[in-house]
């Protein structure tokens, strides 16, 4: 088992790398006008490997750091990502007993949910995000999340380590 300090350092490193890649390379890779969201993939992986606690914590911390790089309403990203991380953690705890393919389905669903939630909460705060854009954004995010979730889970295992293979790792073998 890793020490808390080693885990903390690895977690900070992973969040920083994800943010840099999202803000630079990903910002130019648009499909149908929408981007993949690596922060979301990281948060989903955290929720799936560590449950609602870890999902919400990563969601809040990574969302807050992401918000510093954006011009969107401050605080909206930590709220949305913490909510998604928490729910993914809960759903993951319940569903991963059955099949190793659930992470892919959950990640895709999280991509859609993030688009809906961000648009709805943004409108509540008075920013006129268009609901007509939700399908394109949601589908592109879902596709990227489904594609990247398995490597992201491996990254999370590298960060947090474990004494013995956990249930999810066994299912994915």
């Amino acid at each position, binding site marked *: 088992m890793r020490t808390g300090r080693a885990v903390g350092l690895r977690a900070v490193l992973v969040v920083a790398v994800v943010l840099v890649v999202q803000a630079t390379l990903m910002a130019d890779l648009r499909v149908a006008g929408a981007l993949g969201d690596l922060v979301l993939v990281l948060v989903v992986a955290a929720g799936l490997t560590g449950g609602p606690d870890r999902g919400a914590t990563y969601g809040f911390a990574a969302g807050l750091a992401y918000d510093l790089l954006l011009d969107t309403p401050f605080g909206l990203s930590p709220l949305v990502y913490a909510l998604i991380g928490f729910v993914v953690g809960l759903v993951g705890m319940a569903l991963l007993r059955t099949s190793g393919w659930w992470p892919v389905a959950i990640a895709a669903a999280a991509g859609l949910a993030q688009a809906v939630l*961000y648009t709805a909460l943004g409108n509540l705060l008075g920013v006129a995000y268009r609901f007509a*854009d939700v399908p394109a954004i949601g589908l592109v995010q879902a596709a990227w999340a489904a594609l990247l979730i398995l490597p992201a889970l491996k990254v999370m295992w590298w960060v947090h380590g474990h004494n013995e293979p956990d249930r999810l790792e066994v299912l994915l073998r």
Partner: protein
Amino acid sequence: MALSPPSGSRTRFAILMVASVTLIVVGLRDVPIVRNAREGAARALDPVENAVDTVTSPVRNAWHGVTDYDEVKAENERLRARVADAESQKVAGADAEKQLADLSKVLDLPFAGRLPKVTARVVSGPRSNFSHAVEIDKGRKDGLKVGMPAAAAAGLVGKVTSVTDSSATVQLITDPEFRVGVRLATKGSLGTARGQGRDEPLIVDSSINPQTKVPKGTGLTTSGIDTSTFPPGVPIGTVQRVRTGSGGLSLELVVKPLVDVDQLSYITVLKWEPK
């Protein structure tokens, strides 16, 4: 299937939710600490962004080659047609250009070139699906300040919303939170244009009488009235459609921006500040 979290998780989640809402409230008040934190993050990212931009440009070019192939082909055809058209207009245009230059000298048209300018390269597009801002590679050291208007050859692009020593963020005209005072080129009527999101036209809430005829294609420029945060006369777009505004007392104009903000490589920041 049990979806009930342990009580410890519930407490931590509740704390994170309260913290998020607190951050939103703090952010809405536009307190300096949030501005400074965002500026600090942008400053920290600057060198990394430039390095990654250089290293990853082959990947991005390949991606655009795949995803924008049809668009590039169509654009190529459009440009060929435009070049042919331009050739034929060249002779007639030369005379008109001289007249316009002379007129500009007399009237001192603001967009004709007397404002000091800084041209910057766009180093990053919007960083999320809900962001409508681009990063440029010029900043405070080059004389840029928050609020300065940004333009491309065709017209207004947006305005500078944050600045570090060597970079700046430009809010695009398509941002749903973007507002600019406009003037109808032929009628002189005033209104306020607002963004509606990516690939969407601008909407102008005007005070124009609903009986007034506004032809399709009428140009709009920044109004530059006393309280405006933009200089007068910067071209913005052309009227695409006209409809009656809410309440039926005025006209609402649907305006196509002159600048395609998805295709920006360089931006010119006008060193102009409101009086």
